[in-house]
């Protein structure tokens, strides 16, 4: 009996390797093409479903901590009605970077399983560490996700307050990036955080 299995495996492998005697090449190509579209569409739909605000707030770790804070900020509610949701800031738009981020984010499942931020107290204890990861990520990409919407060149000296506009133009000239100054804009600043020049 045992000896028949390798033979069976071999024959399946041979079938896979040998040219089709039954289906035409164009039929196989068409089938592969359509299957590819269906697979890719399905994959992308699921991927994009993990980028929605509803998905992010499914877990109480986000819903009870960072989400209510974000709802108080200008990125949630503003005069012009443009809203930036979690993924707009925390997930890159470019596909390759998005995949890297999503793979890294799978580590958050481990955090969920081990309950690393399962209570507001535990979250507060780790807020500085988690915020620092995100600040470092934005710093390393020249605040790429901020720049999906914001652009130094699109800032109007008439619409922006004078001091703010001057600071932005100085930052542009000195090669500073958004996150250098704009920390804690959508969530509370960690209690351990200190401005570089407070005194």
């Amino acid at each position, binding site marked *: 009996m045992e000896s028949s299995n390798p033979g069976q495996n071999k024959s399946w492998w041979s079938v896979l390797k040998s040219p089709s005697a039954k289906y035409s090449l164009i039929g196989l190509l068409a089938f592969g093409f359509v299957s590819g579209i269906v697979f890719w569409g399905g994959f992308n739909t699921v991927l994009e479903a993990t980028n929605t605000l509803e998905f992010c707030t499914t877990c109480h770790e986000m819903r009870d901590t960072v989400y209510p804070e974000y709802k108080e900020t200008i990125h949630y509610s503003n005069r012009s009605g443009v809203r930036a949701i979690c993924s707009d800031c925390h997930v890159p738009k470019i596909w390759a970077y998005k995949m890297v981020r999503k793979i890294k984010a799978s580590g958050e499942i481990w955090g969920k399983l081990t309950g690393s931020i399962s209570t507001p107290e535990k979250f507060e204890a780790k807020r500085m560490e988690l915020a620092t990861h995100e600040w470092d990520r934005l710093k390393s990409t020249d605040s790429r996700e901020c720049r999906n919407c914001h652009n130094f060149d699109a800032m109007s000296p008439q619409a922006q*307050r*004078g*001091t703010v506009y001057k*600071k932005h133009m100085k930052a542009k000239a000195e090669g500073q990036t958004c996150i250098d*100054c704009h920390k*804690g804009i959508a969530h*509370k*600043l960690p*209690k351990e*955080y*200190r*401005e570089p*020049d*407070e*005194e």
Partner: protein
Amino acid sequence: MTLLRSSLSIATLMAGTLLLAAPSAQAADEEAAKALARENKCLTCHGISKDKDGPSFKKSAEKYKGKADAEAALSKHLTSGAKIKLPDGTEEAHKIVKADPAQLKNLVQWILAQ
């Protein structure tokens, strides 16, 4: 009777002392005030003891020193978008501080205590 009366006066005196001491017990919560200042980006334009685009908090405290309505005046300044003059001579509206009344009161008291 005399003993009771003197005990009462001592108690009254102690209560009075406690009442007098009360304001210092309500001194501003420094950490909470600084946290609010960071959240509102106050420290971008004001240092605690260093002038930036705006005066230092020490300078602001000196300006309001001895004024009876200091707390009310500074609260209004921080929440009304008051016109301010910058070092380069230009004028603009001051940023409106986002905070609930208790937080704002604490921030104002802390600034005035610098």
